[in-house]
């Protein structure tokens, strides 16, 4: 290669890889239902294997370019973690049943253990995730987790949610900035004003929706009942109120996903790996909210059986709107050396339904 060519290659425009999910609803349905049946038949023991198969299915079908992600956790470690989590829960319940005051030491220990749970959970999942044979890692420390997951949320509640957006920002920065891929750091940053703008927009949306609902009720009362003289329990008035409240309920349900998606976009679009590779996120808050809410109803009306399709549907959309702009090759990336890790923290965390992800 001549030096001119080398310089050209050096300057080559970054390549954009759009993420792609290649799994299908019917394929995942079969995996889900068989693993669920096996979990029921084994009284829950198989759930550790079911979890690994589910994660492997979703990671293994998520492609960046020609390569998929991969999930490596050992079901046995997860089983041990779950057993410990369940034992702790039973211990807490039983001692609390004797005397509620016995529950206090448990809660105290849980409070102190919480930052540790956050870190070990994130670390377990990161270290068991790979792309092109290279593992991720999570490097958060106890005090950093304490500040992001305990101090900030308390500040958020204590200020009647005035500081909640700032707390969310602290959590997102903690999450992203402590992940590494092959030892290279992820980094994101955005100003508090960016996130406050999103929450203000959400508040505005809420006020508009509430005003629209109030106007609808007013119109119902004054036009249908008073002007047309319909009885308040007649079919027309009843149906009109019902339609009004169902619509309002749907819109209010969509508020959460809308805000979450906007924050996610903000955080991801500022994320850079190794100071070179940029993440691009173009998820439409409205579409995500629509998929989430309609999924919820479809799952409800099918008594849960639509769940696999719902999950694949959301994942498809999310991956399609995510891309990585790679500036140069990652051929020289290599996994850091670290020992395998127990799943205790992760499983205690997920057993008590903490959701640490973004």
């Amino acid at each position, binding site marked *: 290669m001549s030096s001119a060519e080398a310089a050209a290659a050096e300057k080559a425009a970054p390549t954009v890889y759009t993420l792609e999910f290649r799994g299908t609803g019917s394929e995942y349905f079969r995996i889900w239902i068989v693993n669920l049946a096996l979990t029921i038949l084994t009284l829950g023991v198989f759930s550790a294997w079911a979890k690994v198969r589910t994660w492997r299915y979703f990671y293994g079908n998520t492609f960046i370019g020609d390569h998929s992600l*991969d999930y490596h956790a050992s079901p046995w470690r997860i089983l041990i973690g779950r057993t410990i989590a369940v034992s702790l829960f039973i211990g807490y319940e039983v001692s609390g049943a004797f005397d509620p005051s016995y529950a206090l030491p448990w809660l105290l220990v849980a409070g102190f253990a919480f930052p540790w749970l956050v870190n070990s959970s994130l670390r377990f999942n990161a270290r068991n995730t790979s792309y092109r044979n290279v593992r991720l890692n999570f490097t958060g420390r106890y005090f950093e987790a304490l500040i992001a997951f305990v101090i900030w949320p308390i500040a958020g509640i204590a200020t009647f949610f005035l500081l909640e957006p700032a707390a969310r920002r602290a959590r997102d920065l903690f999450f992203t900035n402590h992940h590494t891929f092959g030892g290279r750091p992820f980094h994101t940053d955005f100003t508090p004003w960016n996130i406050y703008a999103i929450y203000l927009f959400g508040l505005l949306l809420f006020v508009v929706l509430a005003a629209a609902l109030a106007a609808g009720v007013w119109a119902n009362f004054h036009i249908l009942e008073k002007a047309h003289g319909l009885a308040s329990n007649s079919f027309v008035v009843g149906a009109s109120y019902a339609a009004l409240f169902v619509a309002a309920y749907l819109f209010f349900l969509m508020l959460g996903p809308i805000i979450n998606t906007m924050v996610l976009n903000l955080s991801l679009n500022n994320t850079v790996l190794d100071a070179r590779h940029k993440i691009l996120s173009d998820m439409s808050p409205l579409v995500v909210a629509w998929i989430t809410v309609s999924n919820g109803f479809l799952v409800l009306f099918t008594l849960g059986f639509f769940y696999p399709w719902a999950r694949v549907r959301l994942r498809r959309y999310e991956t399609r709107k995510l891309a990585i702009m790679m500036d140069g090759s990652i051929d020289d990336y290599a996994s850091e050396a670290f020992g395998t890790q127990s799943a205790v923290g992760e499983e205690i965390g997920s057993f008590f339904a903490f959701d640490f992800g973004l």
Partner: protein
Amino acid sequence: MVDGRYFFPHSARFVPARAAIIGRKALRIESLDAVMLDEAPLRDVRVSARLGRIARRFEMPNGGCFETDDNDGADDMLRGARRHSGQGWVDRLERSWRTVALSVLLAGLAGYAFAVWGIPAIAAVLALDTPASISKMMSDQTMVALDGAYLQPSKLAAKDRDKALALFARVAAAEPHGKNGYHLMFRGGGIIGPNAFALPDGRIVMTDELWKMVKNDDEIEGVFAHEMAHVNHAHGLQRVYEASLVPATIAVVTGDVSQVSQLSVILPGILVQSAYSREFEQQADDDAAVTIRSIGGHPSHLGDLLQRMEDKLCGKEGCGPSWLGSHPQTSIRAERLRSEDTAKKKQP
């Protein structure tokens, strides 16, 4: 020979490669022009379990990794060396429509059985095991919340209060917890209007508006007996436990809370719960009928009062179909209570 790609130890760098098992003992990875890239005893290689169409991974002891999309080829190669890749049987179950159909059946039946028998049974056990101190604490909190938001001080005359207390004591004497097990509290109903409700620790609140609608002693005794039955069965606590068990179960079944979270968890919770509490109302009505008969009254009078309350609140046509509300349709309840009168005549 299986085609795929080989990743160098711990590295993202890869080349197209082929894998073969040599003499049933060793896995050898070669580049396409037959240069040896890696080799290791088969027993030291971690082979990932087959799952859907995702790539199969052969993790070498040195951190290298051979990856192939040819799942059938990989299985053939392993079978030739009598090596099982774990969980192959799960994959076969997942690909057979017969086991999928069986699983749907099993999951459906298990889910149904758990919703119909499991959750109420667990909630009942938990509710009856709940220490009195917790019931009291919860009742205190509920009372504070209600007093702050809806209820007002009672304006009932002393003579009415005395009469209500006397009737209350008469009913309580016939109930399992006895005279000291229940406490009557008077409140102005505010926007709640005519109503009565029970708290887990035995406190029963009656609004002034309800008292004003009562036409005879049997009616209000019926109300007291109904509310005492809620206390006896710890219905309030059961409702709290059911409320937390339903979403917990859904989370377990779907395997994760985050994905479809909010809706699919909350909505069925509400629907299932209102079905459960309808059963509570029926049970309380039935118990009340027995108590009222035992002290020489007519359960039908409670039915009359219920009907009158609904007529006042919603007009003659009723408030709505029964599946919408937590209480069964009033006309059905009144009918049932009236039939309890004849039950008395049959077996005096």
